[in-house]
């Protein structure tokens, strides 16, 4: 029974992994894989139902939806990965420094985090875009600035707890320098929960990029991006609901795939479970 359910779990992780790999492939090689030019307007063929030429049909300007989805993967997922890398980097360095050093530096860095945490994410993002102007880079910056403090806080909390462990004391007594202690003994305990959190947030951040683009603040039309596509299709929702469904489905699938992958990653990083499987 247990074996069956664990096989099931790893099966679903494999599916999620394949799906995520597919999305990454689309993001990398999108323009080569797209069957049509995603920007080619053909007003004679607008609102076509799915057919053999346009597998997912065409939008209100006669552009091929499948091609736009494929090319849009790069913008949406690429920006999310950049956001994630920056947020994790900032969170780990600020939170790690605050937790390891402690004292006044800790207090100072945490008050800085509080400043960012007191302003609601979306309001901060809107403010940043208002100050910096619209565009994908500014959207990325806005999302990073409104999210890093959460990660810094979580990392600091984990570090504070881990650094009181006996094995950290043992490493100190053995003469290990602080940076080595952080990398060898503290970081391995921080990464699994952080990886789970980050993969959960991939979906959240994709929705942010899509959402800000949907409001017309991020990626500008006619660049294909999933949020922009939903925004474009909104006007025709009651007559052509499929135009909203396709990019919505792409976002949902990507979010699901990365979430499941995150769960699998967390399990994979836990040595107790590795030993159960391996020995």
């Amino acid at each position, binding site marked *: 029974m247990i074996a069956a359910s664990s096989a099931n779990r790893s099966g679903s992780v494999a599916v999620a992994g394949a799906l995520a790999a597919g999305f990454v492939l689309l993001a990398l090689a999108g323009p080569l894989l797209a069957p049509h030019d995603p920007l080619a307007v053909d007003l004679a063929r607008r609102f076509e139902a799915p057919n053999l030429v346009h597998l997912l049909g065409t939008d209100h300007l006669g552009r091929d939806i499948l091609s736009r989805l494929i090319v849009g993967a790069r913008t949406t997922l690429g920006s999310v990965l950049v956001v994630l890398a920056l947020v994790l980097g900032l969170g780990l360095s600020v939170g790690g420094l605050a937790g390891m050093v402690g004292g006044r530096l800790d207090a100072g860095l945490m008050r800085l985090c509080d400043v960012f945490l007191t302003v609601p994410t979306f309001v901060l993002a809107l403010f940043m875009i208002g100050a910096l102007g619209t565009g994908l880079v500014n959207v990325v910056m806005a999302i990073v600035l409104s999210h890093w403090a959460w990660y810094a806080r979580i990392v600091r909390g984990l570090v504070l707890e881990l650094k009181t462990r006996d094995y950290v004391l*043992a490493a100190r007594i053995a003469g290990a320098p602080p940076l080595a202690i952080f990398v060898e003994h503290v970081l391995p305990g921080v990464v699994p929960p952080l990886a789970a959190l980050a993969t959960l947030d991939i979906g959240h951040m994709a929705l942010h990029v899509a959402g800000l683009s949907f409001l017309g603040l991020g990626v500008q039309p006619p660049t294909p991006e999933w949020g922009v596509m939903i925004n474009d299709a909104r006007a025709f929702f009651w007559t052509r609901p499929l135009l909203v469904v396709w990019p919505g489905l792409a976002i949902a699938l990507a979010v699901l795939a990365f979430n499941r992958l995150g769960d699998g990653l967390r399990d994979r990083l836990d*040595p107790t479970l590795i*030993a159960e499987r391996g020995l």
Partner: protein
Amino acid sequence: MSAKVLQGKVLQAEVLQAKILRAEGLSVETWRTTWRGREPVPLVRGVDLDIRTGEVLALVGASGSGKSLACAALLDVLPPGTRRTGGRILLDGAQAEPAALRGRAVASVLQAPRTAFNPLRTIGGHATEDPGKPGRIAMAEAFAAVGLGDDPRVPDLYPFQMSGGMLQRAMIALALMSRAPFLVADEPTTDLDLVAQARILDLLAGLVRARGLGLLIVTHDLGVVARLADRVAVMEAGRIVETAPAASLFATPREPATRALLAAHRALHAVPAAEAVA
């Protein structure tokens, strides 16, 4: 030599040859906040310790007498909320910085082997984590010296897959790998069952003889002292009240604190001792 010891790595060879590790006047205090402000509370007051290579010094005393804090002060790894207020460390008569001694001149064995290992790393991972340390051959040699050499799988085990006794052996092996001439063992057998205790004590005694280690063993168990120690320092309320060779301490205890410890020990072990005589 003192300035050179501060730089640690440079004079590793000299540190490895050291014969006497001496702590003078170690003092530790904490503080409590009253309406008048902070008020210092002394925890360790002017403790002197002499650890010589090839010899076992036992530091005994009741719980809370400051034994572990004195060791932590020696290595400068005091817990938060306490601070060292005095004392200096001398290595062969030259003043040394505790941070430069850790892992070079002094290795340590902690009380609870279960928590002293990173649960996310294998035993071999612990042994080879520092690139400056010797590699797998030295590791195999150290594991063999502590009796873990028979099973080739040991380096690939995670801490939770090993027994407490095995873990304590592995910790001693890691301490040996540093090739430090001095070893501080803070209650190394407290978390172990009686059989494992006896084996670990035999192992430590053997290492002191075979390798000429200088061992400082902290314990509240006079059985451990009788079995292992050459000299004994008795602590009470943060002070060392009596230092004597082990045999004379058991035969003619001078201080009330020592007599109390001995009385408690004999009360606990009276029955087995009588049986052994009969």
